[in-house]
């Protein structure tokens, strides 16, 4: 049984991880497992490097 503060706290924490990309690798692994790709998944380091590069390819920040 979870009290409401704990519940909202958890939701907030998950949103924060999601927004900042803290959980990006975990989501990648999940996606990888679901889609039965033949190659093994990237390591955390390699994934993070590619993720950063991709994130900053276009217009991502405004005035």
């Amino acid at each position, binding site marked *: 049984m979870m009290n409401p503060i704990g519940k909202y706290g958890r939701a907030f924490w998950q949103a924060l991880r*999601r*927004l900042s990309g803290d959980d990006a690798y975990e989501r990648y692994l999940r996606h990888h497992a679901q889609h039965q790709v033949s190659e093994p998944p990237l390591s955390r380091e390699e994934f*993070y490097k590619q*993720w950063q590069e991709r994130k900053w390819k276009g217009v991502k*920040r405004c*005035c």
Partner: protein
Amino acid sequence: MNALFKYVVWIAIALLGAGAVGGIALNRGESINALWFIIAAVCVYAIAYRFYAAWVAARVLTLDETRATPAERFDNGRDFVPTNRWIVFGHHFAAIAGPGPLIGPTLAAQFGYLPGTLWILIGAVLGGCVQDMVTLFFSTRRDGRSLGQMARDELGPIGGIAALIGTFAIMIILIAVLGLVVVNAMKHSPWATSTVAATIPIAMVVGLYMRTIRPGRVLEGSALGVLLLLLAVAGGGWIDHHETLRPLFDHEGLPLAWAVIVYGFAAAVLPVWLLLAPRDYLSTFMKLGTVILLAVAIVILQPDVKMPALTRFIDGSGPIFGGTLFPFVFITIACGAISGFHSLIASGTTPKLLANERDIRMIGYGGMLLESFVAVMALVAATVLEPGVYFAINSPAGIVGKEAAEAVAKISSWGFPVTVEQMQTLAREMGEATLFARTGGAPSLAVGMASIFSSAFGQGMLALWYHFAIMFEAIFILTTLDAGTRVGRFMLQDMLGNVWPKLGETSWTPSVILTSGLVVGAWGYFLYIGVIDPNGGVNLLWPLFGIANQMLAAIALSVATGILVKSGKLHRAWVTGIPLAWLVLVTTTAAWQKIFSDDVRVGFIAAANDLSAKLAAGVLPPEKAAVAPQLIFNQHLDAWLTAFFVAVLWIVVLDMLRVSSRHLAGKPVPPLAESPHIPSRLVEDYVRD
């Protein structure tokens, strides 16, 4: 019963909002509580979101929640990912919210609080939010294509090229003016300079942490970075009092401008994980944290707004920037009401995350409402200052005079009393050598925020709050500078790749160095001119930026209006057509005045001629005479640039009108590029994330 209750609630919100707006608008002579601005804004936003945005979503765009979005159709777990709408909202808002809505309203406060407030509210609900929402919608219906691609598909190659060039030009001017704001905030302020300088190694430490020590642990790295930033703010105070360290960070504008230019080049060439990405995490956390803190502080403190509703400067004689209320209040506010730049985020980036079309109203329209709210708070922070103090901080020395006594006499003679002692006490409290002629908006915003924060959360820490505010502004200005230079580099590589494909390879080092150098050189030039300009440069660059930004908004609204007409919705096309017509009117008038006005503080050509005449007559002091030829050349360049912006604007608008009238006459036009309807398989009870 339930329906009746809803009616009553909405009528109450409408009455409260009308009362607050009316109170703000009709109040004369007495000071007015800042809380009324917050109430007015929240009520106006609530009604606009509930009724106008809902109507646009349902009747004009006809959002279809059964239709699969690009995120669902192309889901690849990387850039196309169906995402919870609150998360998309967070990403979208973090991307659109930059320093623009903080600076514009601060500068526009020279007209009094009323014009800025009204335009931020009206411009946002009828213009900016609509632009963001329709662009997001049309891009979502086109597989998340960018604004430039949509312009090319829907209007033709001319529109596409105009959008591309317009985006590149706005990037250059934007970075230059933001660089200038940072330089002006650091000028002769060892505390601010050392704190801002410290953000670079701090970002690198965080970058290394996230890359090698604990790969991908973004939150741990960010928490460490925020802690280090706060220490840097406190450490800056220590450096400021340290005899040997202090001179190392005490500089004129020009060396600081060179430092910013070198930094910009380094940031564009270095790998993103080292500097840009970690800095962006820090700036996003700082930005959100500070904006929330400011809102809470205003609600707790409920400060009085001391600026009059209208000042005498609506006649165009304002010290901060020259030009009459119409059109310059609209050009100056820019981002807080309508920002063309948002259409670049709303197309391309955000559509790839949308799980369902029904989220478009909240993310597109709602995101901009929040941005507009930030602009209202910046306006409050500027107008709670004593008007005399506000003008003393923001008026350039070239207008009010170099000497403190001269400046206070001039400002007091305008009817805004201020004394030298008052300014000295304030500067001492803020931990600065002087607060006279600290143009650019950042120092005055920081003084406003510091007074609000210290009153709301405990006195006696004014200097710390002031430098915290400066650091907060500087860090995300530098993020925009890094990211903008990089985007400019990619765009240039893309364009040059058409001439010589090798140059288009984004990782070929000679091309990276060449294109980064060209982009940095372009904005560096305008930054340099802004720094040597005796009138402070902001006067010169901010209107140019405003015109460029409104031009980009007009391109986005033209694309949207063209699509609406082609979709057989001519009778609804006024939704984007009216803001477009207004932007064309405002931008054209402003551009005309900036080029041809006889007033030397408004017209570029008049200013160039005036300076040439003075140079020829030998009446300029030697240090001014030395830079005069550069300033004259630059005034001409600015005139041509303004003419170019307005020409691009008119080309796109006329192209849209050509396509629309051909369509209405039954002649062939480029077909609608909308992707076919594929039913969504993400069923109603699907738990998104």
